[in-house]
């Protein structure tokens, strides 16, 4: 058909040659360097929800000892309660607590999304992307809301 419209069909050997040229231009194997991870690999939104779920979970686990220490002191005595309140007012502490609050909120929202996915709800691509965006936004919104209530 193509031949009739004046475009010569490629010979098989031509095609193979072109394919190998294209392959030669790409450096293979492709190693996941830090540079590649940061600048080249573009995660889809559900991928971001997933990796942030992991990061936030790990952060919450590691921060457990710190949070328990504050809970312990705040309940031990009135002086301890005031001390924790002052301590939480310091900006590096406040910033860390805000980050942990986000970690909790994101983990919460993303987790609920995963529960629905487990029940086969919202597993088609468009819905999955939509709920992924919703989980990220809801996590940030909850953080902002609770953050303003706390401080």
């Amino acid at each position, binding site marked *: 058909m193509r031949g009739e419209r004046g475009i010569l069909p490629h010979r098989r050997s031509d095609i193979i040659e072109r394919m190998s040229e294209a392959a030669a231009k790409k450096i293979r194997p492709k190693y996941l360097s830090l540079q590649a991870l940061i600048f080249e690999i573009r995660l889809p939104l559900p991928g971001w929800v997933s990796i942030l779920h992991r990061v936030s979970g790990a952060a919450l*686990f590691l921060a457990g000892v710190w949070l*328990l220490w504050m809970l312990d002191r705040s309940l031990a005595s009135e002086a301890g309660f005031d001390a924790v309140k002052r301590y939480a007012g310091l900006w590096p502490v406040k910033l860390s607590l805000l980050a942990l609050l986000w970690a909790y909120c994101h983990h919460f929202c993303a987790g609920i999304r995963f529960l629905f996915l487990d029940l086969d709800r919202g597993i088609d691509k468009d819905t999955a992307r939509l709920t992924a965006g919703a989980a990220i936004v809801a996590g940030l919104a909850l953080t902002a809301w*609770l953050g303003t209530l706390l401080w």
Partner: protein
Amino acid sequence: MVSRVVVGAHYGLRDWLAQRVTAAIMAVYTVVVLWVILAGPPLTYTAWRELFARGWLRVATLLFAASLAWHAWVGVRDILMDYVKPDGLRLALQVLVLLAIAAYLGWTIQILWG
């Protein structure tokens, strides 16, 4: 007539389910406690103390902590299995994580009933 089970120690499904059940328990606790705190008086030391003096909240918090312990164990173990390849190092880290979780739990009980 040999029936062999080829793969797995069969903790996969149990942990998968536990991860989800504990998550649901913690989610309910989070919403309830947040509601109680927000509906209550401003957080002074007395109000804070009285909140944790309630028996049901102590028990609920213990259930939350127990759920968290199991949930965190499955989660952190999955992370270690994914990223830490040398067996010895992974085992050492997993033991450390288990000890940390046990310590967290013991400390929580001490805080609640100490």
